[in-house]
């Protein structure tokens, strides 16, 4: 049974950055680093928080295990088709939120 991508919105800030980091196949720690970098240090995640989030996203079929050769003990993740749609939808939602309100906010600041 597949949940509709809309059902996942809104995403938490952390989840949004996790999905964003999976534009490339990455293992857990690489996700932590990318999130910190892309969010310019605004979002930092402990390994327990990330592990829990990834387990949940994997169960929801938003991300999946990626097959990576040679490696060791690390688990690599990638977005599923559903995950890609969720990320796109959330981006559009946030964008329209900002666009629709920007003029109003600017006026309010001007006063």
């Amino acid at each position, binding site marked *: 049974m597949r949940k509709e991508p809309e059902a996942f919105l809104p995403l*938490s800030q*952390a989840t949004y950055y996790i999905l964003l980091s999976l534009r490339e196949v990455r*293992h*857990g*720690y690489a996700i*932590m680093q990318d999130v910190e970098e892309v969010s310019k240090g605004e979002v*930092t*995640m*402990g*390994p*327990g*928080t*990330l*592990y*829990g*989030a990834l387990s949940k996203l994997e169960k929801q079929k938003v991300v999946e295990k990626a097959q990576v050769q040679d490696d*060791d*003990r*690390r*688990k690599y993740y990638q977005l599923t088709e559903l995950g890609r749609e969720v990320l796109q939808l959330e981006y559009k939602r946030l964008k329209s939120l900002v666009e629709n309100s920007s003029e109003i906010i600017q006026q309010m600041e001007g006063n």
Partner: protein
Amino acid sequence: MAKRKFRLFLGSDVGKEEEWLTEMSRNGLHLQKYQLFSYTFEEDPEKSYVYQIDFQQNVKDDYLQLYKDAGWEYVTNAINAFHYFRTETSNKEVRKLYSDKESIRDSFNRMIRFYVTIFLCFLVSQLGIFTGLFNSWKSYPFYYTIVGVDAVVIVLYVYVLLSLRKRVQSIERK
């Protein structure tokens, strides 16, 4: 040189246990092994670690590797569900295991599910004892001892579950 200490911490007291271990480490005693309320420490006054305990079942290699990558050294575990990690106190870069309240709440909820499951198994296994209150089992010599032990266990479980629930509620209120 190794030192052993006995301490009883309930599942709902992981925070206190972490503080105690970190404090011990500050005084030069670093946890090495945990077994049934017995903590084995290694003495080294030169070092100092911060300890954290993570509740997680059915973990695989990737779990330990992620924590290791993030700067947490694996120390030991209790019943393969409470995992003890440490990092040197001087490592200011290292993030705490949980960085938001949702994930802290989730970890307490995992603990609650775990304790409820064992509690139910325990109750089922002791059905004979409880129903025995009303029949001939009473003549069994240790019967009242067993009932007493069972009562203590039940009180403990109820206490732990209520404390855990209180924890979850106070996190949600924040």
